[in-house]
Structures are given as structure tokens and as C-alpha cells.
């Protein structure tokens, strides 16, 4: 196998898949870091976002790229609503109860998708897209857009967290919630803001997965494990870590078909998760360990 084949058939799909995982993992790392619990409904929230975009495209008739920001807004609002009605009243109780509630939410979101949109696989656009060739490297437009959009979204988020008042408040909550409260950070507002961002990231992850493969009710649930592995691999609470972790998991999953049967591709994220917990639980970039 030539180097070009390796890049075309394994590295590029790996980077695209990794970008999608990265978008989800950033959301997971924010919830894990700021609100301090493992959000098990993350994958199904991504499914919900993807299908919200589908509704806009198929029923509303809007362009796919207009549907993306709209779906992100819908999903952000849904995440705030879920927090308000199902997570918020558990905040004084042990965090593990919120984890349990989120498992229930995962089931409920999936049931909503199955009832409203059915269980058939769907796509945003019909027809086969042929890859373009640049100096021997074959890449589809949508793959290029996926990677660029991921980098753009993460850059905006990065700037927001570093330079704005609310971004700093979010980082303060992540570092030391008691100190942040004492300094007058509004806990409720930071929580709502976090959920809005997380919901938007979920919708983006679901949208790009749907764009590059197809939409089905279980698409998000199968992404949950790689996304968590990516967040923990990068270091919990570290946005740039989640991106690196996502890319690593994506590339390793695609490359793994060279060595292990395809059926066990999904097992790789789990293996990486266990190894990182065993040898370096803080992750590559020294994150938190809860």
C-alpha cells in the first residue's frame, strides 16, 4: 500500500470522524469540568440536533448550511430546558443521581426521535458525491467543510472562554466553584450558558455525522463511548485536549481496520479509555480527575 492510499482511505476518514468526535468531546469536557458529572445523554442530544436539522431541510426546505445554525439554536434551547426541568433540582444531591437522570434523558430523547421521525435511515442530500482530487489526495467537499467547521467552532469557543466576562466565569466555575461563587459568579446563569453551548456543540456533532454518513436513531448513542474516551484522553475540562483526543480516537478507529476485524472498530475507543484510566487518568493535557 502506498502512502497516498494510506492517506486517502484511512487518514482522511479518520480526521473527519475525529473532528466529529472532537465536537462532541468538547461538550462532554465542559459538562464534566464545569457541572461535574458525566452526561450520558450527550450522544442522544446529538441525534436530536441532527434530526432537528433534517426537519428544517426536509420539511422547511432550507439549505443544509442554513439548517446547521438553526438546529444548533434549537438544540441549545432544548439543553437549557432539559437542565431546567430534569437536572437542576438534583444539584444539591449526590452528582451520581444527575448521571442517572441523564441516562433517562438519553432514553427519552431517543424515543422522541423514533416516534417523530421513525426508525428508517435518512440523509440530508440525495445522490453520491464524488471526491475531488488535489495532488493525488482525494477529499470530498463535505469532509473539508467538516474539519474547517470544527476548527472554526472550537476557535470561537476558545476565544469566548479566554477573553469574555462570561467565558472567564465559566472557567472560574470549572477551576473552583466555591471560590467562583464567593467572587460573585452567578451559578445559575453560568449553568444555563454552559448548557446552551453544550447543546449547540451536540447539534453540530450530530449534523456533521449525519452529513458524512447517514441519520439514524442510534447514531448518537454509538458515538457516546468514543466521545467520552476522547474527553478523558485529552484531559477532563481541557477544550484543546478534547479536540486532540477526538482526532486521535477518530484516526485510530479508522486505522484499526488494517489490524483488527471491522466489527470491533467500536471496541477501540473502549480499550483506549481503559488504558488511559489505568496509566494516566488526568489525560494527555493534565485535566481533572473526579
Amino acid at each position, binding site marked *: 500500500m502506498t502512502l497516498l492510499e494510506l492517506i486517502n482511505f484511512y487518514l482522511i476518514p479518520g480526521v473527519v470522524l475525529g473532528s466529529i468526535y472532537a465536537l462532541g468531546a468538547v461538550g462532554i469536557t465542559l459538562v464534566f469540568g464545569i457541572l461535574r*458529572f458525566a452526561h450520558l445523554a450527550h450522544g442522544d442530544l446529538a441525534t436530536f440536533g441532527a434530526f432537528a436539522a433534517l426537519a428544517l431541510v426536509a420539511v422547511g426546505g432550507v439549505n443544509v448550511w442554513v439548517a446547521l445554525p438553526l438546529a444548533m439554536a434549537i438544540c441549545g434551547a432544548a439543553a437549557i430546558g432539559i437542565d431546567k426541568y430534569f437536572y437542576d433540582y438534583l444539584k444539591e444531591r449526590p452528582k451520581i443521581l444527575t448521571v*442517572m437522570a441523564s441516562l*433517562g434523558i438519553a*432514553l427519552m430523547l431517543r424515543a422522541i426521535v*423514533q416516534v417523530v421521525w421513525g426508525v428508517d435511515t435518512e440523509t440530508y442530500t440525495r445522490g453520491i458525491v464524488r471526491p475531488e482530487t488535489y495532488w493525488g489526495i482525494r477529499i470530498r467537499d463535505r469532509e473539508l467543510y467538516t474539519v474547517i467547521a470544527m476548527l472554526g467552532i472550537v476557535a470561537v469557543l476558545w476565544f469566548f472562554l479566554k477573553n469574555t466576562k462570561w467565558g472567564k466565569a465559566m472557567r472560574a466555575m470549572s477551576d473552583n466553584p466555591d471560590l467562583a461563587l464567593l467572587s460573585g459568579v452567578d451559578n445559575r446563569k453560568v449553568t444555563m450558558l454552559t448548557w446552551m453551548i453544550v447543546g449547540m456543540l451536540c447539534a453540530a456533532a450530530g449534523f456533521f455525522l449525519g452529513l458524512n454518513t447517514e441519520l439514524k436513531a442510534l447514531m448518537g448513542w454509538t458515538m457516546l463511548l468514543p466521545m467520552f474516551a476522547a474527553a478523558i484522553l485529552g484531559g477532563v475540562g481541557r477544550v484543546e485536549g478534547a479536540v486532540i483526543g477526538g482526532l486521535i480516537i477518530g484516526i485510530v478507529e479508522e486505522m484499526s481496520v488494517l489490524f483488527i*476485524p471491522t*466489527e470491533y472498530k467500536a471496541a477501540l475507543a473502549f480499550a483506549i479509555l481503559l488504558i488511559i484510566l489505568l496509566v494516566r487518568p488526568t489525560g494527555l493535557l493534565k485535566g481533572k480527575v473526579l
Partner: protein
Amino acid sequence: MELIGLANYAVYMAIFIGIYAILALGLNIQWGFTGLFNAGIAGFFAVGAYVSAILTSADVANRIGGFDLPIVVGWIGAMVAAGLIAWPIGKICLRFRSDYLAIATIGIAEIIRLVVKSEGWMTGGARGVNNVPRPFGDLEYFQSQLAYMLMVFLILGIVYFLVERQIHAPWGRMMRAIRDNEAAAAAMGKNIERRRLEAFIFGAAIMGLGGALFAHFNRSITPEAVDPMVATFLIWIMLILGGSGNNRGAILGVAVVWIIWSMSEMITDQLPQEYAIKAKYMRVFIIGLMLQLVLRFRPEGILPEPQYTDETNKEKVQRGSPASDAPTT
């Protein structure tokens, strides 16, 4: 005729309640008494079911088997296998907060599902393992069902007795101490990781036994029977609704949830085809919502965990040895 149909149905329901009750008791050890979040119950269930089925069934082409071992050996094998799978997971994840265990157990259930589906030489692939021997399977239908029900209840009784005994022993007191105040328990010199690992493996082994009973009852086990999310989630809602930390509550919760679940299935099956599928998913939605409502309005469940206060201890002391507490004159 009507009556015998009804009796058949009641016995059938009772067998399932018994099997689910064993699973719920396993989860109660992990969650109720120790506070460990196992989101992969279906995985341990599947391991138990497949191991027992493979060990006890007759030889078939294209699949390992033909061990034809006694059924009891199958059950023990199921428990050992489920415990062995729990061991490395617990070993790695129990050092951290239970969130990590939740993720890892979701992962292991997923992997077990992959293995079951793709390793046909071991599990029979999509066809599953068939012709699993069933205790009392030679009797006439109704007697056979009845005998199986009594056997499940007997096993449930033994499991219940053993778990209760263990929980009232110093071991159980220590587990509750670790759950309620980890730092204090550590300061008392308790080996927290090790105790948690024990509880996790113990619970997983009981789930494996539940799986084995299911496989022998159905005479077969297929990948469809171990739907990861719904099976896991049903057990969770049963335990939370019934009362985590209370074994009788767990069994009560199983009965209540299972009766609601199968009654609603009977109702939705009456609907026309197009609505029936949607209604199936609505049931899942309602189960999810039910968990949220229980967590919000009655987190302790129908039968709350008994409070082991000083008062109950004193009463026991008084009843046990009146002299020790008798007023001195």
C-alpha cells in the same frame, strides 16, 4: 379454558418477575448498598445467559459446545464468568468517582453485544444458542411452567437470604459506611477500593445467574434478547421505584414495573400497525419519564431503606441480653 389461559399467563409473568428480581437484587448490592453506578446490566446478563447455555447444551455443528454439563454447573459457570468480566472493569474504574464506572459499564455491555453478534463459532451469531436444556422441561406444559416458577422463586429466596445476611453482617455495615461517608470510612482504616470491588463482582455474579435462568427458561438465547438499553434501564427503574437499599423494596419494584410494562405492551399490541410501532417507543419514553419523576418526588422509593439508628441497635441488645442493659439498683 379461559381460566387456564389466565393461570398460564400469571405463571409466565411470575417467572419473569422472579428473574428480574434476581437481577434487581444484584443491582441493589452495587447501587443500593455501595453506590456503584452499573449502566451495563444487560452485558452481565448476556454473559451469564450465553455461558450457561453453551456449557449445558448438546453438540451442534459450527459452534463450540456439546459439553452437556449439568444445569447447576452452567449456573455456576455463568456466575463465575460474569464476575470475571466485572473484575478488570472494577479494578480500573473503582478508584475514581462512579461516573467513570458508568461509562465503562456502558462500554463493556456494548463490547459484549459485539462479541455475541460477531463470534459465531462461540455464540451462534444471529441464530443464537438453541436447544438449551430446561429443568422440568419434560413435564406437561402447565406443570413444567409451574415447576420452573417454583424453582426460580426458590433461587430468588436463597439469593435474598444470602444478600440480607451479608448486608446485616459487619461487611454490610462497612459498605454503607463507605457509601455514606467515604472519607470517614477511609479514616477508620477500611480498604475502600477492595470493598467496592467485592460488591461490584458479587452483584455482577448475581446478574449472571439471572441471565442463566432466563436462557434456560426460553430454551434459547439470541442477540435480540439482550437489548442493551431497555433491559438495563428497566432494572434501574425497578430498583429506584421499589426503594434502593431495601431488598424487599427491590422485589416489589420489579413486580410493579414489570406488570405495568407488560400490561402496556398488551394494550399497544391492540393498536393498528402504524401506531403500534410508535406506541412501543412511547412506552420507552414513559419509562424514562417515570425515572425522572421518582428521582424528583420520591427518591427513596416505595419502601425506603431502613434507617439503622442507635435505637434499633439498642432494642436488639435489650432483646438479646436483657441483663446487660438492665437498670442497676
